[in-house]
C-alpha cells in the first residue's frame, strides 16, 4: 500500500434530523444544523476550518451550483472549497476528497458537507434523468428496480430470498428505533413479518414499498484533520486508513463481470491486510437503498462465495448485538437524503470507532 503524504482523521461530525418534509427550514438552514453540530462535536469554530466541501445533485432540487447559495449555511465565506458530485456515492466521494485534500498538505482542517432536500424536487424524476435519453430513459424506473430481488430469488429460491429481504428490513428498522436522527422509525414487529412482507404495496417486481429506502431531507457534516492538528487539538480521532472508488460503465450493465462493490472491497482488503472481512471488521455502515440490495450487496462487500450473507441475516448476525453489526444507524432504508447519505455512513462509522476504542480495537468499513 502506498504511504499517505500525511495521516488524516475524522474529528467530529453532525447531522440534521432526517425527515420526509423539513418544511420549517430552507436549504442553507438545514445544512447549518449539521455544520453547527459537527463544529460542536469537534470543539471547533468555523475559524478553525480551512476548506469546505459541498455535494448534492443539482437536478433533485433544481438549484444550479447550489454551493453558491448554500454558503449562507456551510460557512464557506472567505474560505477555499470544492464541490463534488457523483450520485448516491456523493457523500463517500466527499469523504475521499477530504482525505485527499488533508493528506495533500493543501489543507489542515476540511469540513465535508453532503446535502439533499428531496421534498423540494422529484427524486424519481431526477434519477430517471440519469439514463441516456436515446438508449435507456424510456426503460428507467428511477431508483426503483426489481433486479436485485430477481437475482436473489434465482440464487436462493423464492421463499428464502423473500424472508431474508424482509428480515433485513425489520432489523434495519429495529436499529433505526435507536437513532433519533433517523427518518423512518416504523416499530416493525417480527411477529408480523409475514404480513409486512405481503401486505405492503408492490412497486416493481418483488420490490415492495416496505423494502425501499425513504426519500428524505437532510444534511451531514464531517470534519477531517491532519495528524498534527489532531495532536494540537487533543482531538478524539477516527483515522481514515484508505479509500477506494470503483465505477461501472453504463451501457455494459449486463456484461460487466464482477460488481463494483466486490471490486472495490477486493482492492481495499488487499491493500490493508484484510483476509477475513467478517471477523476483521467490527461494524459496517453500508449504502443499502433497499432491503433486497442490502442482502445482495452485503454478499459482495464481504466477498461471499455462497450463502454466508443470507445466513448472517437469517441468524441475526447483522443485528447490533450480533457478531457483525450492520448499519447500527438504521441505514439507508431508514433515511436517504441522497447527497448526504454516503457521508452519513462515514460519520456513523467514525462515531462507532471513537466510542468503542476504549473497549477494543475496531476496524470499520
Amino acid at each position, binding site marked *: 500500500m502506498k504511504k499517505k503524504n500525511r495521516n488524516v482523521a475524522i474529528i467530529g461530525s453532525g447531522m440534521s434530523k432526517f425527515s420526509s418534509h423539513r418544511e420549517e427550514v430552507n436549504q442553507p438552514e438545514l445544512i447549518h444544523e449539521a455544520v453547527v453540530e459537527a463544529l460542536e462535536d469537534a470543539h471547533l469554530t468555523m475559524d478553525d476550518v480551512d476548506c469546505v466541501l459541498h455535494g448534492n445533485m443539482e437536478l433533485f432540487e433544481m438549484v444550479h451550483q447550489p454551493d453558491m447559495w448554500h454558503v449562507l449555511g456551510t460557512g464557506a465565506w472567505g474560505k477555499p472549497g470544492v464541490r463534488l458530485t457523483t450520485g448516491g456515492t456523493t457523500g463517500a466521494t466527499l469523504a475521499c476528497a477530504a482525505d485527499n485534500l488533508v493528506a495533500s498538505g493543501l489543507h489542515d482542517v476540511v469540513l465535508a458537507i453532503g446535502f439533499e432536500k428531496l421534498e423540494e424536487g422529484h427524486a424519481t424524476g431526477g434519477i430517471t434523468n440519469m439514463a441516456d435519453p436515446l438508449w435507456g430513459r424510456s426503460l428507467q424506473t428511477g431508483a426503483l428496480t426489481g433486479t436485485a430481488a430477481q437475482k436473489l430469488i434465482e440464487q436462493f429460491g423464492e421463499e428464502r430470498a423473500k424472508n431474508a429481504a424482509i428480515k433485513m428490513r425489520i432489523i434495519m428498522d429495529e436499529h433505526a428505533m435507536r437513532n433519533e436522527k433517523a427518518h423512518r422509525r416504523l416499530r416493525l414487529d417480527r411477529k408480523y413479518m409475514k404480513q409486512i412482507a405481503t401486505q405492503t404495496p408492490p412497486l416493481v417486481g418483488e420490490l415492495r414499498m416496505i423494502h425501499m429506502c425513504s426519500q428524505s431531507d437532510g444534511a451531514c457534516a464531517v470534519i477531517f484533520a491532519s495528524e498534527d492538528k489532531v495532536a494540537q487539538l487533543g482531538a478524539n480521532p477516527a483515522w481514515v486508513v484508505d479509500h477506494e472508488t470503483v465505477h461501472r460503465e*453504463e451501457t455494459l450493465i449486463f456484461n460487466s463481470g464482477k460488481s463494483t462493490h466486490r471490486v472495490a472491497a477486493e482492492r481495499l482488503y488487499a491493500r490493508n491486510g484484510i483476509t477475513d472481512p467478517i471477523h476483521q471488521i467490527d461494524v459496517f455502515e453500508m449504502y443499502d437503498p433497499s432491503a433486497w440490495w442490502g442482502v445482495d450487496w452485503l454478499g459482495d462487500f464481504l466477498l461471499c462465495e455462497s450463502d454466508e450473507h443470507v445466513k448472517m441475516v437469517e441468524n441475526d448476525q447483522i443485528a447490533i448485538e450480533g457478531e457483525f453489526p450492520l448499519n447500527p444507524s438504521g441505514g439507508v432504508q431508514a433515511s436517504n437524503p441522497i447527497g448526504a447519505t454516503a457521508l452519513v455512513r462515514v460519520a456513523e462509522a467514525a462515531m462507532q470507532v471513537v466510542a468503542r476504542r476504549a473497549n477494543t480495537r475496531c476496524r470499520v468499513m
Partner: protein
Amino acid sequence: MAKHRGAGGRVAICAVAQTKFERDKWQVRFQGMLWEVVEKVLRQTGLQFGAGGIEAAVTVSDDVFDARTISDGAITDVVGAHHQSEEKVAADGAQGVYYAAATILSNHHDIVLLAGHCKESQSASRNQITHLAFDPFYTRPVGLDYVAAAALQAQAYMARTGVTEAQLADVVVRSRKWARENPVAQETAAVTREQALAAPMLAAPIRQSFMYPVSDGAIAMILASEERAAELTDRPVWITGLGNCYDSFFLGERDLAGNFSLERAAKKAYEMAGVTHPTDAFEVVEIADQYAHQQPQYAEGLALCPARQGAKWLADGGPEKQHVNRSGGMLAGNPLILGGMARVAEAVIQLRGEAGSRQVPGAKRALAHGATGPAGQLQTVVVLEN
C-alpha cells in the same frame, strides 16, 4: 500554513488537448466531444487505462447544462473509469485542476486524467440555467441570472474605477485579435471598437459583444506525480501555486466592485509558489473574463495592477505588456464551466513553447484564473512553471 507533499512532491501537467470551441457542435454528443480530447492525451503520453497507467479520472461537468442527473455516469467509459475511480468536480474546471492535484499530492494517485465537457448549445437559454443558481425566496423572484449579476458587478466596478464602455470595447477588439492566432478559439472575426459598442444591450452595461458567447467544447489533461512525469513528457509543466475562495452569496452583502474572494485565492496561490511581486512575476497571464469588465477587475484582484487602477492599467496597455489572454480569453469562447480549465490549458501550451504565432518567447511562469458562480463568487488561481 499547511505542509505540502514531502521531498520533491510536485504535480506536473504532462499533456493537454482541447476541441475547437464552437457555437453548436450539433454533429456530436458530449461523450464524443470528450473522447476526441481524451484520445489525444492518451496518444501524447502513450498511457493506457488501468494499473500502472491512468488510475483515476477527475471530471468537470454540470448536471443542469448536461440535462442529466449524475451526468458523469454517461462518460465513465470515455474516461476509462469502468471498474476504476472517477470523481466529478461540478464547478469551473480550474477547481478540477485544484482537486486533481490534491489527489496526487496526497500520494493516493500517481497519474490522473482530468476531463471536462459542456455543450451550452443544448440549452434553450443559458440565463434560464443560471437563474436556477439563485435562491427561490429573495433573488430568484427578482429575475436574477449570471448576466444580470455580472451587469450589477460591471456597474459597480465602472463607477468606482472610471473604466469606460469604450475601454471594454477595446478589450473585445484585442480578444478577437489574439483569438485569430489560437486554432481552438471560437470568436475570431475582427471587430472594431464601434462595432463592439453597437452590439445589442443584454443587461446594462453588458452588451452581447462584452459577454462570452454560447460555446461547446471539451478539454483533457494528464496530471502526474514528479516520480512519473518524466515517463510521460520531456516538457512537464509544474503546478506550483493553488488557491481558491468563496465570497458571500447575496450580491448586496458583497463589495461588487472589489475582489474579496479573488484577492484571498491569489494570496494563497502566490504564497505557495513563492511569488512576491505579481506585477512582473508572470510571462503569461490567463484571466477568465466571462465579461469584458472582468478583465481589468480581476487583474486588480490578481494584483497585476494596484486596486482601483483598472482603467489606468487598460489605458497604459497593461494587458499587452503582461501578456494577458493571448488565447483570446473567455470572450473568444469557452463554455462557462470550462473557462478556468481553458486558461490553465493555454498556460500549459505557452510554457511548453507550443503556442505558435501567439507564443510568449521564453515563458517561464504563468498565471491561470477561473471563476464560478454569480459575479465570480468562487475564485480559483493556479500558478504554473516549466
